């Protein structure tokens, strides 16, 4: 009862039907048959796509670098298994549009032969910069779904003064349980990854050995929703020896795993609009990312596989399964005995924020936390009715916006008015669409409007550029004409001068 009054309030959110039990109760399946072909997109992260450095016909080993990162925010891509490069070309992307993007097609040879890796005996002797470099080289990105390159975040952590590292084990999306299972089965490795991350963010003086007591005041908080008791106990046991890592339980409420919601709950601080969390001294990573960091630093193994939840009403054998990146969804569905006739929608990610995919011939990527095959009865009704202004959407919005007003503005194409009342702060969490009794597809309006606003800004920018070019050209022409006039005048003056001299000479003669 007392905790009811002392607990920091959570803004908005919904309590969706969890449907995690089927997959959360059984261990991660490790015997997924190696697919014949893997389709590895060059962009599996936020930022610039990676640049391939292999050629068609090359034989590669598992973990070999296939494409290197280019630019400040990017991540490399490694071979998920050994085999021959078949093609580097455009294939449909795992995106609702399924538009083609560049991918490397790898024909596996079945040997699954690792490239020589360089394990580190004591990674705490490495400098923090070295940790980030190794994490970056291993192609690790945020595995919760955002796919932001982890090394960039670690670097930002060193540059800003970070005092709290939050490890996000909320996994608030319904159906998904891959983080839950990983925390239960791989708690020690995850905690080791957290320690390495803390080490990687240490702001050490030049040349000094970092990570020594007293030098680093950054603490880690592992936040786990209280519907994952076993994961909580496993993680707490694993973190017992390390006082700088605290494991806490947080209330089960979607979207608890949204970084700003989690930061507000854990630290009591609000991330200001338009700022990054690192600006208030907090950085946040997913538990899966911590595990990948552990593998990359301790064993030198790059990110080539991940745990994916395959679930939904149309799935015969729902499970968490470790698959090589680039595995086609259709192969996953075969393995998990998905009934294709019952499948009404394929979703990559969770049912609240995930993208619906047009077909199953698309590859899984680093950010794929789950693949759901939902039946019609599980989906939200689509018969849209008029808004009755019940304001349920306002109550559940975790960003404190007024979804119904924004949607009304967007409907009549007043996008600026929608931006004025906070369109850009919408995180597309789906709470408003979830709760709406009139089945209004609010998030769809917001996604459309965000895209449209961006396109208009780009068009405005382009026309401004064109206008500047035209102005510059006019100024240049004007300058040239002016110059020509001056030259002409000078020429005439010189001619007159010559004639005058000539006349003088003639007169002298």
């Amino acid at each position, binding site marked *: 009862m007392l905790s009811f009054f002392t607990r920091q309030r959570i803004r908005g959110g*919904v309590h*969706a*039907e969890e449907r995690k039990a089927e997959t959360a109760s059984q261990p991660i399946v490790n015997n997924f048959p190696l697919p014949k072909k893997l389709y590895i997109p060059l962009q599996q992260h936020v930022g610039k796509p990676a640049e391939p450095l292999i050629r068609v016909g090359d034989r590669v080993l598992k973990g070999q670098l296939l494409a290197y990162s280019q630019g400040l925010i990017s991540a490399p891509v490694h071979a998920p298994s050994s085999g021959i490069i078949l093609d580097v070309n455009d294939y449909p992307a795992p995106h*609702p*549009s399924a538009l083609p993007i560049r991918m490397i097609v790898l024909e596996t040879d079945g040997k699954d032969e690792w490239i020589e890796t360089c394990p580190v005996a004591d990674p705490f002797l490495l400098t923090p910069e070295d940790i980030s470099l190794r994490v970056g080289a291993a192609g690790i990105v945020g595995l919760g779904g955002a796919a932001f390159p982890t090394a960039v975040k670690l670097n930002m952590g060193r540059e800003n003064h970070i005092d709290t590292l939050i490890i996000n084990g909320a996994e608030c999306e*319904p159906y998904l349980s891959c983080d839950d299972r990983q925390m239960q089965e791989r708690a020690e490795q995850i905690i080791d990854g957290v320690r390495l991350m803390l080490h990687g963010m240490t702001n050490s003086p030049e040349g000094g050995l970092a990570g020594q007591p007293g030098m680093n005041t950054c603490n880690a908080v592992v936040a786990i929703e209280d519907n994952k008791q076993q994961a909580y106990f496993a993680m707490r046991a694993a973190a017992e020896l390390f006082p700088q890592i605290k494991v806490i339980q947080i209330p089960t409420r979607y979207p608890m795993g949204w970084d700003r919601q989690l930061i507000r709950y854990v630290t009591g601080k609000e991330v200001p609009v338009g700022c990054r969390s690192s600006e208030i001294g907090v950085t946040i990573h997913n538990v899966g990312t911590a595990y990948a960091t552990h593998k990359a630093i301790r064993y030198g193994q790059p990110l080539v596989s991940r745990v994916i939840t395959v679930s939904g009403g149309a799935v015969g054998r729902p499970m968490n399964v470790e698959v090589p990146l680039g595995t086609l969804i*259709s192969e996953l*569905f075969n393995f998990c005995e*998905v009934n*294709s006739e019952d*499948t*009404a*929608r*394929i*979703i990559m990610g969770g*049912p*609240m*924020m*995930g*993208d*619906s*995919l*047009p*077909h*199953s*011939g698309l590859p899984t990527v680093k950010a794929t936390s789950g693949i*759901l*095959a*939902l039946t019609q009865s*599980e*989906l*939200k*009704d*689509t018969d849209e*009715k*008029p*808004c*009755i*202004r*019940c304001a*349920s959407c306002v109550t559940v919005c975790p960003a404190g916006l007024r979804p119904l007003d924004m949607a009304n503005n967007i409907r009549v194409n007043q996008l600026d008015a929608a931006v004025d009342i906070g369109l850009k702060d919408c995180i*597309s969490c*789906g*709470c408003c*669409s*979830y*709760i*709406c*009794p*009139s*089945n209004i*597809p609010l*998030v*769809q309006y917001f*996604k459309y409007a965000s895209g449209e606003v961006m396109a208009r800004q780009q068009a405005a920018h382009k026309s401004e550029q064109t206008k500047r070019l035209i102005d510059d050209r006019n100024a240049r022409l004007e300058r040239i004409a002016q110059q020509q006039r001056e030259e002409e005048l000078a020429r005439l003056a010189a001619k007159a001068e010559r004639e005058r001299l000539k006349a003088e000479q003639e007169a002298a003669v």
Partner: protein
Amino acid sequence: MIPHLKPSSGAHVGAKSSVSQIMWQVMLALTPATVFGIWCFGWPALNLFVITVVSAMGFEAFCIRLAGRAATPVIMDGSALLTGWLLAMTLPPWAPWWIGVVGSGLAIVLGKQVYGGLGQNLFNPAMLARVALLISFPIEMTTWANVSPLFFSDSPGLIESWRITFAGLENLDATTGATTLGYIKTEFSQNRL
């Protein structure tokens, strides 16, 4: 491979809520006050309540048919029922039947359907109707009956209640009306006293 599916944005799952469910929730919340009100003011109050609610649904069905749409699903959402219910709760319990019918007509036609139906109304239809009734029929709208609970010996019986509702009030022991306080207030505000 699964053939082409129509893309859709999240949330893909939804709460099991609907417009009619919200209407029913409001009605559930109104029930205690309604039951108590009908008990307090006897059978005439029940008559007026039923007349108002039924005529509200009738006007709704009429308007929907006029627009060339199927009336049943719209009636089933409960919004017209709720409007009639809310209006009935604001009427004097012994008001004549035509107050309820005219009020429902004003609420549904003028308050709701001319704006475009459910969700498009500018004002609460029931309250708009109440204001219109109060302006148009001030005597009927300000004639309040004394409390005469159901099944009490001096309360009107079922048969007598029909006479009250359909034939108007007769041979009352006493009536209430505006007192001189209202008159004085008006005159004061206009500096005539």
